[in-house]
């Protein structure tokens, strides 16, 4: 069992968090959120990986052939759908904020202090 499946996603996750915490542009902020989310794609896909295995589609191969775990692929697909929805919604919010305040810097948006 390798440590890589855990170290690589942890790194991506932390990079994304760092990007979000220091962001000065809303689009950058939203994309950093996507980066954080891609850590979960990488982790989940790596978990289901099996060396030398084929894709888990059994229409043209025998069902005894070694295949990767189909569950993780379904999980990743669901995750990607969620990610696309959230990103689209957030970008719409960002556009709306820019049109009103004329700024895309999240650190200048502080109407709700305290």
């Amino acid at each position, binding site marked *: 069992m390798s440590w890589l*499946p*855990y170290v690589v*996603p942890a790194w991506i*996750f932390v990079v994304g*968090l760092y990007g*979000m*915490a*220091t*962001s000065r542009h*809303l689009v950058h*902020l*939203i994309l950093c*959120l996507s980066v*954080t*989310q891609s*850590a*979960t794609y990488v*982790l*989940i896909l790596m*978990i289901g990986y099996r060396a030398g295995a084929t894709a888990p589609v059994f229409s043209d191969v025998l069902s005894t052939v070694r295949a990767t775990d189909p*569950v*993780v692929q379904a*999980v990743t697909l*669901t*995750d990607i759908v*969620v990610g696309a*929805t*959230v990103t689209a*919604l*957030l970008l719409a*919010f*960002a556009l*709306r*904020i820019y049109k*009103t*305040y004329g700024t895309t810097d*999240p*650190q200048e*948006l*502080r*109407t*709700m*202090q*305290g």
Partner: protein
Amino acid sequence: MSALAPLALAVPLVAAALTSILGAFVPRVVLTLLNLAASIFATVACALLARDAALHGTVVHWFGGWHPAHGVSLGIAFAVDSVSAALAAFTAFLTTAAFVFAWTYYDKDDGAFTALMQVFSGALIGFFLTGDLFNLFVFFELMSVSAYALTGFRSEDTSAVQGALSFAIVNSTGAFLVLTGVAMIYARTGALLMAQIAHAVAGQSDPLVVVAFALIVAGFLVKASAAPFHFWLSEAHAVAPTPLCVLFSGIMVQAGLYAVARTYWSIFSAGLAPHAAGVRDVLLAFGLFTAIVGAVMCFAQRHLKRLLAFSTIAHSGLMLCAIALLDPIALGGFFLYVIGHGLVKGGLFFASGIVLNRYSTVDVEALRGKLRELPWLAVAFALGALALAGLPPFGTFTGAALIEDGLSRAHLDAVGIVLLLAVALTGGSVLNALGRMTFGWGPDPDPQAVTPGEEQPETDPARGVRLVVMAVPALALTALAFAAGFVPIESTAAAAAQRFTDRALQEAVMLSGAAPLALPAGPHISLSSSIVHGVAGALLAIVFAALGLFAHRIRPLWPALKRIYTVAMRVPHAWHSGIVTDYVAWLTVGGAAFGAAMLALVR
């Protein structure tokens, strides 16, 4: 009976789809009736499921007939026990009340808002009923995304969009933590069904299991608005439409807490059993911190909806402490408290919605003396405030009494006193605001004080029948919260919570096809000893309110008092900077602290 379980969320989701398709063509009243019917159906279905689960044991529904074979499950199941069904029924009930309140609220809505509310409600119902960990995450995300969209729904109001942005960024990050944890536990066990995972991790508490547990719980604590993950909540509540605030404060935050309890008891309790004391201490520390931060910030607010939002944070801290005890009776108290608090807070938010509708502001200072025109509303506020402080016989009292019982059995009476002060302070904050709004009491507002973002009027002021339609849910929820205290449900709740924590039975029912068991008779619980506690809370609330309203009349002390207060509040005010990037930083710090504490204490 098990067919009712999927229907309880399918009907709201179908109603949502119909509403968004038909929204532009059919009259508004048809849409409202359709959605009311769907929510009432979901309420009744979940209530029947709760009754059935209490009489005959857990109701299990395997989707597509994928039953487990030889103790191994590949399917996805709903595992409905009396607790989860009761919370699902409460969700649908609050949604019904919100639809009644919103009846004449959004005249221009073409159905999108109603449809999103219905999706939100359906997702929450699924969240409560499911017995599968990944399914839990999917419903969590569905609920969250519809909540973001609903918060930013009035896109012409940019503060709403900004609040929705903070809400979405922080909560999505929390959801990724949950998903990472789910992935790690799948890596270890190859299972996603809760009972199957529990079977596989029994007796294992190596670092990977602990880290997975910490990630899942930390993610759910973001939704539960535990400090320091709570910053999104006050912003989302300040800007969200009133009917939505009722659902956010009444059940969404508590759903996060429910998931913490579910994750521990249904999945990890066997694996982490040797470290239960460590888990308890970490969760208790977070719960206490949350209660204190929420209560202190609550008192400092002059924006009514933000004030109620911070009170939700304080009460969420109390509820987290109840779960943290890992004690079935305290857990039963948590479930009762969710319902009692949801009714009270729902009534208070509806009442503020009426204020907002009438005066186009929820700034307490701008409302000075105005509420004298609506004495019945002032009474509703006062009752709600006392109920928040735990005055018997309100529903909050029953829950708090069971939690207090758990605390004193664990020899944590000091924690109980801090929690009592915290909830009394939230009640006092509402009374303080009420004294200003009704009688114009209190010192003149500090011109240098932070003014909250201006609230836009949600609709034209309601008169006549429309006002009655808004008043009915506000008063009904408060009345129900009062009546709830007279229902002798405490021992049933304790029995249901006992069953909720019975992982071995859940495993036998889910995996080996064992017959589910009816709820046993609960332990006898005497509430009379807690009455003093509850009355003390209400009296303390009045004292806090009096301090807020009249301390300025003690001439010699006032300047010093004011100075101390201002200096002391500078730090928490600085934390709540209103900048989303800071919130992400707090989330990182809090998540790291939570994970480190878990690993250190659970070693």
